[in-house]
Structures are given as C-alpha cells and as structure tokens.
C-alpha cells in the first residue's frame, strides 16, 4: 500500500476525529440541546377565551414564607390557617389576631358564632377571637378532614380518609355521616383518589359535595340522600380535568360554584346547574402544574384564592 494514500487516509481520519469531538462539545451546550421530543403538553387547553374572563385580580395578601393551609371568609374577616397558626385579618389586610394551633391544620370554616378548624383527624372549635373553645373527639384514625362547611346549627365535614361526609352539631356532637353509596352500581359513593374532597352549603341551605373522582357536584339532603348531581369531565375550559377535580370549591350567594382545579390550575364559576358561567383565573395566572388554590368568597362576590405556590391570598373581583 503506498505511503501517500495511507497518509492522506490518516489525515482524513484525524480531521474526522477532531470534527466529532467538536460537534459533540458544541451540541451539549445548554443553549444548543434539543428540546424534549416526548413533551407532555396541555398548552392547547391553557389558552382561555379572554371574553370568558369576567374577573380581575385586585389585591394580594402576602405572608412571607409560611406553610399556608386554608382560608375562610365570614363576618367581613378572613380566617387563614397556616402550619400551626390561625391568623385573622381584615379585608384591608390588617392583622387582627394570631393564635397558635396545637398541630398542623387542614382547613377552616367560620360563621357568625365561631371558627371551626379541621386537623388531620379531628375538628376544633374556636371563638371569633381565635381562642380555642373545644376540641371535638376524633371520628377515627384513618379520618382526614379536608373541608368544613357551617350551616347555622350544623357543621359538615368532608372526611377524605374514610370517603364520607360527617354531620356535626355546632356543639361538637356527631349526629350522622354518609358515603353517598347506593346499592345500584352507578352510584359507588365518593371516589377520592387523592386527598382533595370539598363541600359547601349554599345560601339556600343546600349541601353540595364534590365527588372529585367523578368530576361531579352532588347535592345531598342533610341526611345524605342524593337530591341531584351534575358532572363534567373535560380538559377544555367547560369541564374538570385530571383524575380528581375540582379540588376546592366555594358557593357564591346566587348559588353558583367557584371551582379550583389542580394539575392545570384554573379558577372558574359554574352555574348551580353546571354550565360554565365565567372564568376567574386562567392557567396562565398560576405557576406550572401545581396545587389548586383554596377558595373563599365574600357575600359581595369577591373571590379569595389561597395560592400555595406564591404563598399569598389573591383577591379577584368582577370586572367593572
């Protein structure tokens, strides 16, 4: 084999080697790397028709770096539970009281005659100044209270752990519970894949329970008979996404529902009959795929959303 040829081959090879290394180096730069071919994208559902958005964010209450858990609105006051504290403050954000809690709370509800705070497996009653009146006895260990609703003499508690709704008297006496189960196969009670289970009593005294596994709103009598329900599963704005949504809800004075979803976070208002009424906050208003904000509404119709990511309460009001 003649030497010239060999040398030329060698040179070519040398060049190839250098080229390969250079290419590899350049392609592994953070700005040159290929984008994810397997991207899981829900962006197509994130864009919301702006005409639907009837609310605007007017005020934020910030809290530093606290581990916020839940909010309630009553008596023109906001009641916030964070890890080991109850904070009461005015709608202008003036702190009125702050009292430590025995353990980390899960949710809070308030009425004109008291504050009720849900802990993992029991409920405690506080007076309006945030002093504990009574800690109610726990209905069982696997219990996980995720939401409370007060209706003059009743306190309803959503027990995600046992997948049931508990009915208490305001003095703490447990007077009943129901799981929504029926003999007929089509009603297999509350399906709660993850610890999100909300309920509320609207101004007409109707008890509405979210059945997140079904994306359903179910209306029960206080004794647990199903009066009616509606459900809507869809990624699109008019329905509820994911495997268990809405995660939180609240009822406006006209009986329509304010709903908050996890996964693709968005806050919407649905009619009592289920049709989408308006959008409060589109997914863009929240960071990434994160937790659903806890909700509270004022009689005036202002919506208070507890944003766990930004650690603030965000106030939405109807656009003028």
């Amino acid at each position, binding site marked *: *084999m003649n*030497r010239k040829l*060999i*040398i030329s*081959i*060698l040179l070519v*090879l*040398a060049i*190839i*080697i250098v080229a*390969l*290394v250079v*290419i*590899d180096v350049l392609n592994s*730069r*953070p*700005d040159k*790397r290929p*984008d*994810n071919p397997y991207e899981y994208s829900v962006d197509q559902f994130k864009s919301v028709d702006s005409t639907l958005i009837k609310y605007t964010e007017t005020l934020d209450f910030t809290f*530093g*770096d606290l*581990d916020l858990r839940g909010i309630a609105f009553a008596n023109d006051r906001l009641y916030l539970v964070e890890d080991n504290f109850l904070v009461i403050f005015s709608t202008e954000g003036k702190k009125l009281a702050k009292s430590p809690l025995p353990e980390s709370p899960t949710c809070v509800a308030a009425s004109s005659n008291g504050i009720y705070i849900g802990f993992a497996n029991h409920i405690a009653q506080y007076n309006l100044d945030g002093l504990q009146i009574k800690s109610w006895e726990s209905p069982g260990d*696997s219990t*996980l209270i995720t939401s409370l609703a007060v209706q003059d003499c009743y306190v309803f508690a959503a027990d*995600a*752990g*046992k997948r049931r709704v508990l009915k208490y008297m305001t003095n703490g006496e447990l007077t009943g519970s129901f799981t929504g189960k029926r003999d007929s196969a089509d009603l297999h009670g509350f399906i709660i*894949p*993850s*610890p*999100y289970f909300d309920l509320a009593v609207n101004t007409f005294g109707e008890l509405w329970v979210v059945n997140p596994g079904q994306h359903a709103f179910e209306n029960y009598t206080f004794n647990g008979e199903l009066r009616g329900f509606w459900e809507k599963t869809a990624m699109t704005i008019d329905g509820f996404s994911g495997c268990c949504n809405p995660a939180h809800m609240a009822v406006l004075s006209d009986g329509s529902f304010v709903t908050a979803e*996890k996964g693709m976070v968005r806050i919407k208002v649905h009619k009592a009959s289920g049709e989408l009424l308006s959008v409060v906050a589109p997914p863009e208003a929240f*960071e*990434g795929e*994160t*937790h659903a904000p806890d909700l509270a509404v004022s009689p005036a119709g202002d919506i208070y959303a507890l944003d766990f*990511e930004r*650690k603030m309460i965000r106030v939405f009001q109807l656009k003028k």
Partner: protein
Amino acid sequence: MKWLKIILFLLPLTLAFHNLDAQQRFPKPEFHTHYTQPTPTTPEPRGVGMEFFDVLVLLVVLSLTSWFAIRKRSRNGILLLTVFSAIYFGFYRNGCICTVGSIQNVALALADPKYVISLYALLFFLLPLIFSLFFGRVFCGAACPLGAIQDLLIFNPITIPAWLRKTLGFIPYLYLGLAVLYAATGTEFIICRYDPFIGIYRMNGPHLMIYLGIAFLLMGLFIARPYCRFFCPYGAILNVFSRFSRRHLSVFPTKCIQCKLCTTSCPFEAIDFPDEEKSKPDTKTNSRKFILYLALIPVLMLAGAWIGSKSHVFLSKAHPDVYLAELLISHPELKTDSKNIDIQTFLASGKSLETLVAEAQVIRDKFKTGSWILGAFLGLVIGLMAMNQVIFRRREDYQANKGNCYSCARCLDYCPVE
C-alpha cells in the same frame, strides 16, 4: 420577596418536598376483592465483591504480563492475555471503571470535600503505576482494554518521523492536565466522555462516540495504537513512571549481537538504536543548550501560569452552571424561550439569578487556581521535553525505550540470541 428568596436559596430541597406533599397517597382504596397491592421491583446492582474480583483479575493479568515479558519472554503469552483483557475488561465488564478514567475519580476525591472514592477505583488507579515502577508499562502491554483492542488491529504500521512522534507526545500531557482540571472542578469527566472504544465494547452508545472509536481503529491499522501513544493521559503518567522501572523487558536475553533484526519489529518505534559516532554532538554546544533549556524551564512555567490564569474564564465555560449563568446574563431574552429545557427548569426551580451567578463565580474561582497550575505544568512539560532532546545517553545496544515501550514483547521473537 427578597427574604423569601434567601429562604428559597437556603432550603430548596424542603421546598421541593413541600410542593409534593399534596401528591402523597393517604389511606389506600378499600378493595373488596382480594387484590394484593404489588410492590415495585428493585433489581440489585452488581455487588462490591465483584468489583474487588475485577481488581484481583487486574492484579493477576499484570503479574502474568510482567512474567511473560521479563522472565518467559513469550509474545504469545502476552497476546493471549491481551485477548483475555479485551474480552473480560472490554466486552464483559464494558470497560467501567477503567484505569484510565480512574485518574479523574482520584483528582475529584482530592479536590471535592464531599466526593468519596471507592477503594476498588483507587486500586484500579494505583496498581498499574506500582507495577510500572518495577516492571515497566506492563499494564499497556496486555491489561488495558483500550490498548488491547488497538493492539489486535495493528496491520501495516508506517514509521513516523521521530520529531513528529516527540511533538505529538505532548498531547497526552495536555489531555491529562485538562482532564484533571475538569474533574477537580467537578465539571465533567472528559476522559470517559471521549473514551473512543467503550462504545464498541458495549456495542451500544452515543453514535458519535462509536464513530470516534471506529475512526481510531482505522487509524490504528496504519499507526500502531494511536490512542495510546498520542492521547492516553494515563499513558503519559506511566511513561514517566516506567522510566524509573526497576526491571524492564529487554530485547535481548543476554548480550546484543547488533544483528539489527529487531529494528523492524517494534510497531511503536520504541527501540532505541545505538548511537553512531558521527551523530555524537560536540559536548560543548550540547551542554550550552542544556543550560539554556534549564534556564528556560522557569520562564516557560511562569509564562504558562500567567496564560493559564488568563484563560481560566475561557476554560470555565465548560462547566454547565457557569455556561448557564453567562447565557442568562448575555441573552436574557432566552428566558422566554419555552423550548429551552435547561433555562426553563432553572427558572422554575425558584433559584434566583444572583444565586446562580454566585455559584458560578465560586466555580470560576476554582478554575482560576486550577488553570494557572495547569499552565505552569504544561510549561514545565514543554521545557523538559525540549531539554530531554539535548540530554545525551550513551548506548551500544538495541534497547527498548523504557518510557515508550509497552512491553508487548513483539521484538523478543526477532532476537536470535538464545
């Protein structure tokens, strides 16, 4: 928000956990059927014992090679060992962890307070060096899988002019220096990243790297062991060590009869010829030069150090954090590029740019120290290499060059002396 940022910076981890709290399962579904929940399988990794077995194998191979090369003087024995290493360390063990790469683990272990090196990795690094101090580069001879695959594919090696060989001989030191620098600064393991043959041994891997391997092998048909001679950083160390080896393979068993038969035998041109009278340089000029280079070395080192410290900025760009930080500073618009995973991930992490820049600065400072040392080292190498050319050792016989000889024992077959 400022305070919040600090906390974010203080405990990013806990926050990460925070975000996932809500996704924790709480009481399991009550199954009415007899459904037993499976548990995720966890296939065990290769045990530590096995790793030490590898060390044992390495030890055996090294000893055998030394025996074959120095006592038994058998090329076939070494050939067999070569094949064995190619099969065992190469195809069976897929070449990780290999001695050459272990340089970086050692460097990182020395530099990084948190990094802990496994004993077997350390042994992989030490054993060949120790052997080289007593028997020469027997590791290259048969134990190194990278060497083995090349050694088996030597076809028709051309002779490379000495000056070119010597000059190219500088690359390994450069490679070594960079590898140590990047390893010690925790940037990356370039030796492993650009290991040309691992892809071939695994018959799998990034295609670019496999092409690299093939290119080297093809090259190897005409230049014997191109990687070993002109790239391998570990070879550079061994080269130095082996110069002081206690015993070493020698071409002739008893006495050289100047038959010149061995001259063609070595594909690596690692046999030194006796020096002819005419080429004997007059000692005067020679010693003058010697003095000159001796004086030149410190100059070169200083120059190297200065240039090194100057170019640390450039070198440090190889570190992903530094690069990212600079990218975000120089192209803030990229923040809106939703397709850029790295930037988006950083932004989502809640880490502030200040933090990132601060971290990057720390790394860059490490580079500053590292790169002036590197510069000085390279200066020293150049100086010594040059000086080596004027040091004149008398030789009557055809001897293996202790530094470059791989103890492959090819030449032994050619020597007629019994």
